[in-house]
């Protein structure tokens, strides 16, 4: 544990310095890449709460990622074209202000997670995996064939949404906005994990029947975890739309759910910093291998398999093993 904590500090240090290097040496692409790591890390931290800490293996978190992305895209699209979004129950013509967009993203992701959670949490095991996938696929096919917001072509918003005073179009500034959210999300997750609520949901992962027998409504606990988890992932989706200034149904695809899941498993499940490490590892491999060979996915597959077979419990566990019994 000791080593993992030190390593986590290093991760934070890296996250603060790499983009600054990118800025100084005029390699802004490294800022973009690190921003991507941070955003996907946030999505992964969201999933990790449900999957890693509570044992809710959701194969449908792309639904929240995509919803957050689409809410952002749609609000900003209307603001850009000054088209009315709807006139009932109140008049709205969208917004391109992040301070307006974020709360709406958070509320709508939470609402979607509540609905999906209410329906899905009746099932367990593989059934839960598949029913969450089913809901995400429904949204995916809906988004593809819904013409108003571009369908398969997606939706370009051209300009990043704005904040008062700050220039969000500047890569480094936008990066620090994302990093701010990452820190907030890590902080919230850490607090949750160490609370009595956290004790309950971590216990549920290990032995749900026992938790029921001590008088805890496990359904409600799981539902709340699922909602928080979906909300965090939805927020990441919003930032991702702003990073690319573009949103399309591809982020709702099951492969997206799979990728978020891979970040979590790769970094080490139920480890606070795991998803960041997983996302960083994945993206670095993708970038370096992609530069050498067309068949980089072959090698990526091979590396992932070796990781699972030999490292077993995620990259971060490498920094823990030796000290396991000193807790």
């Amino acid at each position, binding site marked *: 544990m000791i080593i993992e904590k030190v390593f986590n500090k290093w991760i934070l240090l890296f996250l603060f310095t790499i983009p600054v290097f990118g800025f100084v040496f005029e390699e802004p692409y490294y800022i973009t890449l690190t921003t991507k790591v941070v955003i996907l890390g946030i999505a992964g931290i969201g999933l990790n709460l449900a999957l890693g800490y509570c044992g809710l293996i959701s194969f449908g978190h792309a639904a929240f990622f995509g919803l957050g992305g689409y809410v952002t895209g749609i609000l900003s699209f209307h603001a850009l074209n000054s088209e009315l979004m709807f006139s009932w129950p109140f008049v709205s013509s969208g917004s391109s202000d992040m301070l307006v967009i974020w709360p709406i993203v958070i509320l709508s992701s939470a609402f979607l997670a509540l609905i999906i959670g209410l329906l899905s949490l009746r099932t367990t095991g593989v059934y839960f995996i598949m029913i969450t996938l089913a809901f995400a696929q429904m949204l995916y096919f809906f988004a593809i064939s819904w013409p108003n917001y571009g369908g398969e072509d997606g939706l370009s918003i051209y300009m990043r949404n704005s904040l008062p005073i700050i220039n969000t179009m500047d890569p480094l500034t936008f990066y620090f906005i994302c990093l701010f959210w990452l820190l907030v999300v890590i902080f*919230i997750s850490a*607090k*949750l994990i*160490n*609370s*009595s*609520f*956290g*004790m*309950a949901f*971590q*216990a549920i992962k*290990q*032995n749900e*029947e*026992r*938790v*029921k*027998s*001590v*008088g*805890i*409504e*496990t359904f409600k*606990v799981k539902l709340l975890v699922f909602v928080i988890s979906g909300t965090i992932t939805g927020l990441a989706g919003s930032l991702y739309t702003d990073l690319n200034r573009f949103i399309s149904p591809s982020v709702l695809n099951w492969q997206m759910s799979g990728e978020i899941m891979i970040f979590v498993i790769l970094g080490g499940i139920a480890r606070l910093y795991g998803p960041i490490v997983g996302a960083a590892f994945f993206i670095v491999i993708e970038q370096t291998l992609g530069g050498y060979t067309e068949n980089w996915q072959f090698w990526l597959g091979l590396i992932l398999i070796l990781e699972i077979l030999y490292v077993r419990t995620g990259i971060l566990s490498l920094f823990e093993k030796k000290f396991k019994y000193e*807790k």
Partner: protein
Amino acid sequence: MKNKILNIKNLSKSYGAFKVTDEITIDLHFDEIHALIGPNGAGKSTLIKQIVGSVKHDIGSIILDQEDITDLTDVERAKIGISRTFQVSSIIPQFSAIDNIVLSLLDKSSKTFQLFKSIKNNKDLYSNAKKILKEIELSEKSDISASDLSHGDRRKLEVGLALAMDPKVFLFDEPMAGLDESGTKMMINLFKKIKTNSPILLIEHDMDAVFALADRVSVINYGKIVATGTVDEIRKNELVRDVYLGYEI
């Protein structure tokens, strides 16, 4: 009626043609330990599962402290005061012993969850948990993770979890299975002490313990209660001898 804390009437459950419990009527008085004995597969554990509500029974009623709890869910029953142990130790493996107890104290300690307050800083909870660990003689092992505990210690912890809930009745499913002599002795003393607060329905194979502890004994076979009475009455019962051939009664 008044002296009965738990009253179960005509509880039946069948899977197809197979009746796991067949019109079971059994009750639990204040201050007593009521032992439930019978051969393996007689339906003892299934009966416990139906009382706590993790298995839904087909017909019959369950009354706890003059309140009909037949339609309540398992969690609701646990909340109003039914506490159980499992036949096979069922604890939270990656939690330390004390955290297991704290988990069990959560429901009683506050109505709602604290989302952001660190539980480790909750001194009251942890000092209460320590008291319970002391009762089950696990004080020294409070920080050991439950999966690293010995079998006997896990049985104790299991009972500790039930204790922590401070319920109206205890349902203990073979709490002494696999315990050594000193462990059994500790349990017997403990049960004698706690039964005045909350009576115990006890499933146990260790007949010495049963006869040392029980105020009343019921014998179950093929899902039916075949006899109920004091220890002496049961010892003398011919029918019970048939059921329990091989046991020295």
